[in-house]
C-alpha cells in the first residue's frame, strides 16, 4: 500500500529547539504557581446555587409531611430510582394534610442520575434537592435512602416565588432555599434511622463527630439552626395531638455527620 500521508512539515532544528525551550519555560513557570487542587474532603467547594444533590422531603409549617404519596415522582423518574408506597391517613395517625401519605419512600442512589425530574413532577413541592453530594459508600444497601433519612425534621424555607424574584434583592437563584437547606442540614445531621425517642432535646454539639479541619463550611449554620429545630419539633406535632409512631424524632446530635457538610449558607 502506498504511503498516502501528506508530506511532513519539518520544523528545522532551530525552530524545534525554540519550541522545546518554550515548552520547558511554560512548565517551569507553573512549578512556582499555586496548585489549584481542592483537597477534598478537608476542603470543599461550595456547589453552585442550583446544584442538584441528595433529595430532602419537606414538611409543612405545622410539621406535617408535604408528600402525599402520589407516586408521581416515581413515575417521572427515568432511572426508576424511587419507590413510593402510599397509605391512607387516619385520624389517629396523620402524616400529611391530604388523604394519603407515603408509607414507604425510598430513593436508590445507585440508580439516581440527579436529573431532578422527580422534583419537577411533585405536585406538592414535597421533594427538593439539597447540596449534599458526597454519597459514596462501601455498601450498596446504605445507598438506598429510606424515608426517615430523606425527610426533613422541620419545614425547609421555600424557593423564592416569582414575586420575590421580581422584588429583586439577593434572592436570585435559590438563596432562600439554600438557607433553608442549611438549616435542614444542621437539623438532619447525617441521614440515619431515627434514634429512640427521648434522645433529642440535648443542646447541639456542632464540634462533635467532625474531623478536624472540616469546620470551614456549615458550622455556623448548625450552631444557629439547631435551637430552632427543637422549637419546631416540640411545637408542631403535638399541636395536632397525634404523635404517631412514624414521626421522626430529632436525630442524635452527637452522631457523626460528615455527609451533609456542604449545604451551606452564602
Amino acid at each position, binding site marked *: 500500500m502506498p504511503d498516502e500521508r501528506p508530506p511532513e512539515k519539518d520544523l528545522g*532544528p532551530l525552530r524545534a529547539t525554540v519550541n*522545546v525551550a518554550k*515548552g*520547558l519555560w*511554560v*512548565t*517551569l513557570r*507553573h*512549578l512556582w*504557581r*499555586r*496548585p*489549584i*487542587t481542592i*483537597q477534598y474532603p478537608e476542603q470543599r467547594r461550595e456547589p453552585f446555587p442550583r446544584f442538584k444533590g441528595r433529595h430532602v422531603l419537606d414538611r409543612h409549617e405545622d410539621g406535617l409531611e408535604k408528600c402525599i404519596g402520589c407516586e408521581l415522582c416515581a413515575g417521572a423518574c427515568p432511572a426508576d430510582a424511587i419507590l413510593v408506597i402510599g397509605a391512607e391517613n387516619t385520624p389517629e395517625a396523620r402524616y400529611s394534610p391530604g388523604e394519603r401519605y407515603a408509607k414507604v419512600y425510598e430513593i436508590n442512589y445507585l440508580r439516581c442520575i440527579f436529573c431532578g425530574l422527580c422534583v419537577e413532577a411533585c405536585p406538592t413541592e414535597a421533594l427538593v434537592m439539597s447540596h449534599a453530594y458526597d454519597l459514596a459508600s462501601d455498601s450498596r444497601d446504605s445507598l438506598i435512602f429510606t424515608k426517615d433519612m430523606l425527610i426533613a425534621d422541620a419545614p425547609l424555607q421555600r424557593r423564592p416565588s416569582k414575586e420575590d424574584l421580581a422584588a429583586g434583592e439577593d434572592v436570585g437563584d435559590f438563596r432562600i432555599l439554600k438557607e433553608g437547606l442549611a438549616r435542614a442540614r444542621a437539623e438532619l445531621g447525617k441521614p440515619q434511622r431515627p434514634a429512640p425517642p427521648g434522645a433529642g432535646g440535648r443542646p447541639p454539639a456542632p464540634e462533635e463527630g467532625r474531623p478536624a479541619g472540616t469546620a470551614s463550611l456549615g458550622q455556623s449554620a448548625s450552631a444557629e439552626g439547631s435551637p430552632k429545630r427543637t422549637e419546631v419539633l416540640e411545637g408542631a406535632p403535638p399541636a395536632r395531638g397525634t404523635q404517631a409512631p412514624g414521626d421522626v424524632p430529632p436525630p442524635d446530635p452527637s452522631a457523626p455527620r460528615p455527609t451533609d457538610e456542604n449545604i451551606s449558607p452564602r
Partner: protein
Amino acid sequence: MSMTFLADLVVILAKILIVFLVLSVLVIFIVWFERKVVAHMQSRLGPNRWGPFGLLTSVADGMKLMFKEPITPITADHVTFALAPGISMLAAFLAFASIPFGTSVLIFGHRATFEIADLNVGLLWVLAMGSLAVYGVVLAGWSSGSKYPLLGGIRSSAQMISYEIALSLSLIPVVMSAGSLSLRTIVHAQSGVIGSIGWLGPVGGVGKFIPHWYIFYHLPAFLIFLLAGVAETNRPPFDLAEADTELVGGYHTEYSGIKFAMFFLAEYLHVVTISALAVLLFLGGWNGVTPNLPVLGWIWPLLWFVAKVFFFVFLFVWLRATLPRLRYDKLMAVGWRVLIPAALTWLVVSGLAMAGSV
C-alpha cells in the same frame, strides 16, 4: 591471607552495602521528587498524604507492590520471565560499582575512596552495564508471551542500541581530553580553572573564574550525551519502550508486584547513573566552583557532587513533564541521522584541535 587483605575485604563489603542502601533510598526519594515536581508543573499538589510533604508515599507504594500478587501469564516463558527484572536491576546496580562520588575519607587509618572499585576502564564498565540493561527489557518483552510487551521489547532494543552508539561516541572526546577511561582520573583532570583564554584577547581573563570543566570544551558532545542519555534510560520523551498510550506498558505490561517494582527501580537507577556520568564527565564531578573549606573535608566535594546530580535528575523530570513522546520513526531518525553524525563530527573536530595544540 594477610590482615590488609581482610581489612580491604571488609571495607569493600561495607562500601557495597552503603552504596546499595543509599541508592535504594535515593530511588525512593527520586520517585517522590518526580511525582511532586511533575504535579506542581501541572498545577497539582502531588503526593501529600504520607509523611511530611508526602515523603513516605513511595515507601508505601513499595510496600504495596511487595505484597501484591505476582501474576505470570500462562503463555510466558516462566524462567526468563522471572529472570528479566533481576537482570535489569542487577545491571543498574552494577553500573554504580565504578562510579566515584567524592574524594576519600580516612577510616581507622584506612583510606577509603568514595567508590566501590576504581577501575582503569571505569567508563567502559558503566557503559557496558548500561547495555546489559537492554537484556532485561528485551527478555521481559519476549518472555511475557503477549504482544504489547513484545513490541515494547523490540522497540526498546532498537532504541537503546542505536542511542548507545551516539552516547559512547559523545564521550570519546572527553576521554581524549582526559587521556583516561578511569572516571576518577577524568574528574581530576577537570579541577582548577580554565586560565586566561588567548583568543578572547583583553577579556580573556574571565577564564580565571571559569572552572576547568569539560562542558566548556565539549558543549556539543554534552548536548548529544544528554539527549542520548534520556533515550538510553527509556524516559520521556523517549519512552517508546513503555509508551503507555500505545503499548499499555510496553515490556512490563505483564509484570506485577515485586517484579514490576524491580523494573521501576532499575529505570530510576539508570536516571541516577546517567546523571552521575554527566556530572563526572562534563561538570567536573565533585569539583566545586568555590574553594574547598578545609573544615568540611570530604563532605564539601560530596555535597557538590550530589547537588549536580540532582540538577540532572530535575532535568529528567522537567523533560518528562514537558515533552510529548516522539514518534518511533522520528526517534530513530534523530538517533541515526542527527546524533551519530554530530557526535562523529565533534569527535573529529576535537581530535584535530588537540592535534593542532600539541
